């Protein structure tokens, strides 16, 4: 408690309080009540996209990383190629290639137009989710490759020596051990993924960023909506960081 009351802290607090007061009193926030609903739905869409693309992405990343370590060679090379392509090209390009490229091919293929999925494929969000999922898979495939390779071989050998099958070893030892090693990196990557989600606004998905853009266009107010946007992303990042810290602390590690 004592540490808290150091002089520079107090000064910083006063400056922060002043800033907040200035922002609240000197800037225009009267538009806010009109857009509560839109903002809430924007945050919701952003979070849903983040959640599903991370879950789907890591699900793909696990085999992408694993096969690079275990082989067989052609499969390892294919996984490596995928990760390199994803990591080597801009996400915006991938998104547009998928949306404007693949997305515009589909209507020309009769059996796709007749399929049950067609109503969804006519919308923009599946292409956004696909692009962001592949992107996350590409980056995390590389992270998981390192994590799998970094599990000490002695621990895997112990599993083998005690009669574990390859599958049990993967499920009980190798994968949890690799995920645990990768967790701090993954936490950072999820935060990066959060900040990649606004790109879906460029293909007409109405996420948080798109809502803010809409507000700016309708109200002609420039800075305040952007300030709010930054604040919301900051809060979401904070929540993610705290959540991951909780998971990391479930298994304590000792710094070597």
């Amino acid at each position, binding site marked *: 408690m004592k540490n808290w009351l150091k002089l520079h802290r107090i000064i910083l607090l006063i400056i922060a309080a002043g800033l907040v007061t200035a922002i609240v009193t000197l800037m225009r926030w009267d538009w806010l009540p009109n857009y509560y609903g839109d903002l809430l739905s924007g945050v919701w869409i952003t979070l849903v996209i983040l959640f599903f693309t991370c879950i789907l992405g890591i699900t793909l990343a696990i085999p992408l990383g694993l096969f690079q370590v275990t082989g067989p060679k052609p499969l390892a090379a294919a996984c490596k190629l995928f990760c390199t392509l994803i990591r080597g090209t801009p996400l915006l390009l991938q998104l547009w290639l998928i949306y404007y490229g693949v997305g515009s091919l589909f209507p020309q293929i009769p059996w796709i137009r007749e399929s049950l999925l067609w109503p969804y494929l006519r919308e923009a969000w599946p292409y956004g989710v696909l692009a962001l999922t592949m992107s996350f898979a590409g980056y995390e495939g590389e992270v998981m490759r390192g994590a799998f390779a970094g599990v*000490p071989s*002695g*621990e895997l*050998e*112990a*599993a*083998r*020596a*005690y*009669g*574990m*099958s390859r599958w*049990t070893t993967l499920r*009980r*030892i190798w994968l*949890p*051990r690799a995920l*645990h090693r990768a967790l701090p990196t993954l936490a950072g990557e999820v935060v990066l993924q959060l900040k990649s989600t606004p790109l879906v606004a460029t293909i007409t998905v109405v996420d948080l960023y798109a809502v803010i853009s809409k507000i700016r266009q309708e109200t002609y107010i420039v800075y305040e909506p952007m300030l709010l946007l930054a604040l919301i992303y900051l809060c979401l990042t904070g929540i993610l960081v705290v959540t991951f810290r909780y998971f990391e602390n479930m*298994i*304590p*590690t*000792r710094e070597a």
Partner: protein
Amino acid sequence: MAGSDKAGLEKAIEVIDLHKSFDSVEVLKGVSVTAHQGEVIAIIGGSGSGKSTMLRCINMLETPTKGTIKVHGEAIELKSDGKGGLKPANQDQIRRIRTRLAMVFQSFNLWQHMNLLENVIEVPVHVLGRSKAEAVEMADSLLHRVGLYEKRDTYPAFLSGGQQQRAAIARALAIEPEVMLFDEPTSALDPELIGEVLSVIGDLAKEGRTMLIVTHEMKFAQEVADRIIFLNDGIIEEQGDPKILFSAPKSEHLRRFISSIG
């Protein structure tokens, strides 16, 4: 079988004419050993003489190039790999046999993402299919026995090498092994921690467990072993009763090895 009073008992492990090559280098050049039930065999020899390789061939962590391994009379099935060597013929059998042989490693190899209790119940629950409650009860008594009951919720990284190795021994005992294989269990330990591990292993030896122990602790080997095997350059150069072997070594290599170790 000179000097062993266990010769009449059932054969727990039979190693018959074991050869092992890595690439073109022959590391084991025809080793035959029989461990009878309840027998404690210490394996000694210089670095690179093939001690670890021999132990690892017994539970098929390494596949022999030639030869036979029998566990309680059951030969591990091997088939030709088409390149003059052998390969496992029946993974199910190998896994089954591995659950009867417990290995203790030089570097402990505890699973770092599990606490001690989880390490000890892992194989009983997820390989042997025992109930968790049953496994926990047994694990607790084993951890008690190696003096680590209070540390059951601790993760390996927070323990000393001696504690980790004792936990690894508890993990080995949890499968109720027929044979225990120790590969230099104290070589990675600080000198002051060696004693606590050796005393646990010594107690196990007195219980009449079948054990093969690769070790550089000559005094310990003399105390606990029924028989000592001296490996040199991939062959058993000398073996026999500890007292006789150490006091009157026949081969020149063994004489030099004993004096080098002191």
